[in-house]
C-alpha cells in the first residue's frame, strides 16, 4: 500500500515536471518577450538586456527550467550582486504589473476560491444526489420529468447568464440581497454569507445538473442488478435495500468525477468570480490573462495542474477504501 502511494506520488511529480517545462516554454520562450511587458514602449536595448539578465532569460533553456524549479523549493535570486532580490521559497516570481510576489498573491486569493468551492460542492452534492435519487425512484413520473428539465437547463444555460440573471433579479429588482462584497467570515458572517450565496448557487446549479443525471442513471442501473433482487427476496425494508444495497454501488463511481470537479474549482472559477467580483484565484487568472502578466498566468496554470494531480491520487486512494474489489487486489 505504501509502495503504491509512493509510486503514485512519483508519477504525479513527473507529470507536474512535464507541465512545468511545457508552461515555461509557452509563457517565457514562445510568448512575446516579457522584457517589453515590463519596461513598456520607452525601452532601450540596454534596459531589455538588463531585464533578461535579471529574469535569467539570457541563460540556456534547461538552466532556466532548473532555476525555476529550484526556486520553488529553495528560492532564487533575481539579478546579481548588490541589486539582487532574493525570492524565498516557494518562489513563483513577481508580477510584472504589481511587482508583488506571485506566491503571496495566490495565497491571498486561495481562501476565497476554497470557500466558493466547498460551499458550492455541498450544495451540488445535496441537490445532485437528492435529485438523482428521486428521479431514479420515481422514474417516468412528473417528479422525474420535472427534475430532468431543471437539470437540463442547468447544463445548457451558460454560467454567466445564470449569474447575471440571478444578480439582476435578487439584487437589482427584488433587492433581497445587497451587491455582494466579500469579507472574511470572522468580520461579518452575514455579509460573508450574502456575498457567497449567489456564486455558490450559480456554480452548484451547473454541477448539480450533471450530478443529478449521473446519479439517476447509476441508481437506475444499480436497481436493475441481481443483488438488489436478492436483497428484496430476503424481505429487507425498501429503505435498507435503497440505502445499503443501491446507494453505495451507485455513488462510488461518481467519486472520481467529484474529485476532479472539486479540484478544478479550487483552481478558480473564472466567470463566476469575475461576475460576482470575488477576489479568488479565478479572478486573478482572468486579470493576469488580460494584462498578459506571465508569471501569474504560469503560476495559476501550475496550481490548477497540481490540484488535479493531487485530487487524482486522493480519489484513487479513497476508491480503494470504498470498493472492496479494488482494495483486495492491492493486498
Amino acid at each position, binding site marked *: 500500500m505504501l509502495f503504491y502511494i509512493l509510486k503514485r506520488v512519483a508519477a504525479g511529480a513527473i507529470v507536474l515536471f512535464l507541465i512545468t517545462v511545457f508552461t515555461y516554454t509557452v509563457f517565457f520562450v514562445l510568448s512575446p518577450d516579457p522584457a517589453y511587458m515590463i519596461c513598456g514602449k520607452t525601452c532601450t536595448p540596454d534596459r531589455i538586456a538588463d531585464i533578461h539578465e535579471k529574469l535569467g532569460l539570457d541563460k540556456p533553456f534547461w538552466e532556466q527550467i532548473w532555476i525555476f524549479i529550484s526556486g520553488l523549493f529553495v528560492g532564487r535570486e533575481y539579478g546579481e550582486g548588490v541589486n539582487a532580490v532574493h525570492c524565498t521559497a516557494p518562489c513563483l516570481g513577481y508580477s510584472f504589473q504589481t511587482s508583488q510576489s506571485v506566491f503571496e498573491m495566490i495565497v491571498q486569493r486561495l481562501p476565497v476560491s476554497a470557500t466558493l468551492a466547498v460551499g458550492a460542492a455541498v450544495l451540488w452534492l445535496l441537490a445532485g444526489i437528492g435529485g438523482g435519487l428521486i428521479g431514479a425512484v420515481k422514474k417516468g413520473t412528473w417528479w422525474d420529468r420535472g427534475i430532468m428539465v431543471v437539470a437540463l437547463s442547468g447544463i445548457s444555460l451558460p454560467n454567466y447568464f445564470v449569474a447575471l440573471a440571478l444578480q439582476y433579479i435578487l439584487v437589482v429588482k427584488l433587492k433581497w440581497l445587497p451587491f455582494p462584497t466579500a469579507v472574511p467570515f470572522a468580520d461579518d458572517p452575514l455579509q460573508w454569507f450574502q456575498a457567497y450565496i449567489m456564486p455558490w448557487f450559480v456554480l452548484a446549479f451547473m454541477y448539480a445538473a450533471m450530478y443529478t443525471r449521473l446519479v439517476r442513471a447509476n441508481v437506475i442501473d444499480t436497481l436493475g442488478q441481481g*443483488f438488489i433482487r436478492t436483497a428484496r*427476496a*430476503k*424481505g*429487507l*425494508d425498501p429503505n435498507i435495500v435503497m440505502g445499503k444495497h443501491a446507494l453505495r*454501488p451507485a455513488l462510488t463511481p461518481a467519486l472520481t468525477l467529484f474529485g476532479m470537479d472539486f479540484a478544478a474549482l479550487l483552481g478558480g472559477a473564472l466567470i463566476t468570480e469575475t461576475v460576482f467580483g470575488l477576489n479568488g484565484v479565478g479572478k486573478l487568472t482572468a486579470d493576469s490573462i488580460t494584462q498578459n502578466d506571465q508569471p501569474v498566468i504560469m503560476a495559476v496554470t501550475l496550481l490548477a495542474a497540481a490540484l488535479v494531480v493531487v485530487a487524482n491520487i486522493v480519489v484513487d486512494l479513497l476508491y480503494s477504501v*470504498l470498493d472492496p474489489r479494488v482494495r483486495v487486489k492491492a493486498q
Partner: protein
Amino acid sequence: MSRQKRSKNAPRTGSLKTVSIPIKGSTLLDVENLTVTFPTVRGPVDVVKDSSFRIDPGKTLGIVGESGSGKSMTSLAIMGLLPEGGEASGRIRFFGHDLLDRSDREMRRVRGDKIAMIFQDPLSSLNPYYTVGVQIAEAYRAHRGGSKAAAKKVAVDAMRRVKIADPEQRVDHYPHQFSGGMRQRIMIAMALCLEPDLVIADEPTTALDVTVQAQILDLMKELQEETGTGMLFITHDLAVVSEVADEVLVMKGGETMEHGTAEEIFSNPQSSYTTALLDAVPRITDVVGDIKGVSHE
C-alpha cells in the same frame, strides 16, 4: 375469477403471525389458477396462464421450460417480486394463507424468512460492496434481530453447513474472492440460514460448470433431506430436473403442457411438446443419429 392486484392498499386479511401458523389440513404451497399479466403496447399479455400445482414439505417440484415459458415469472409471483406492471391473479396459498392478499409489508415478513430464493448467477446476485458474512446474516438480522456478533455466528454456521472450508476466515471475504461454485454455496447458505419452509431455486446451477453443478445439486438434495424444506426448482435442463424433482411441470408460452410425477413425465409423457423436448436433448450415453428438433421457432 376476481382480479387481485397486490398493492399497498390491499385489504389485510388475517394478521401477520398467522402466516406461520398453518391452517389445519393445509399444504405448504398450493397454487391455484395462477395467471400473471403484463401490460404491453398491444394490450395485456398473460405470461403465466392458469397454472396450478402444490408442493409438500420435503418435496421438490421442478418447473421445466424454455425461455419465455413463464417459469421464472411463476416464482417471482409467489415471492411477490414481479417486475413493475406485473399482476398476479388466482390463489397462492402458503399454509392455507393466500399470499396474493397480503400487503407489501406482510410479504416482506414472509420473504427470506418463510420463503427463500436462490438465483441463477451467483456473482451478480451478491452485492460486491459487502462481505459475504454481512450478506448471509442480513436476512437473519432483519427477521430475528440480534447483535452483529450473533449474526456473524449465524453466517459462519450457515457457511459450515454448505461446506465452505474455513468459514471463520472466509465470512469476512467479499464475493469476488470466491469461485462461482463457492458463491452459489453462499447463496444457499443465505437462503437456508432462517430455515425457510419453502426454497425457490431459479436455475441455480445454469451458470456453473458441470462438475460444480453436480456438487451443488448434491448439496441441495442433502440439505433438503436434513431440513425437510419444500422446494420449487426452476430449470430449462430436463436432465437436471430428472435428478432433483419429485414432480415435474412442463411449461411453454405461459401454459402448463404437462404435470405429473417425474417418473410419469419422463417415462410416459402425454404431451407432444414434452416428447419433442425429450427428443431434442443431446445425450452423452450414445448417439441415436440426429437429435430431433422442435419446430416452433
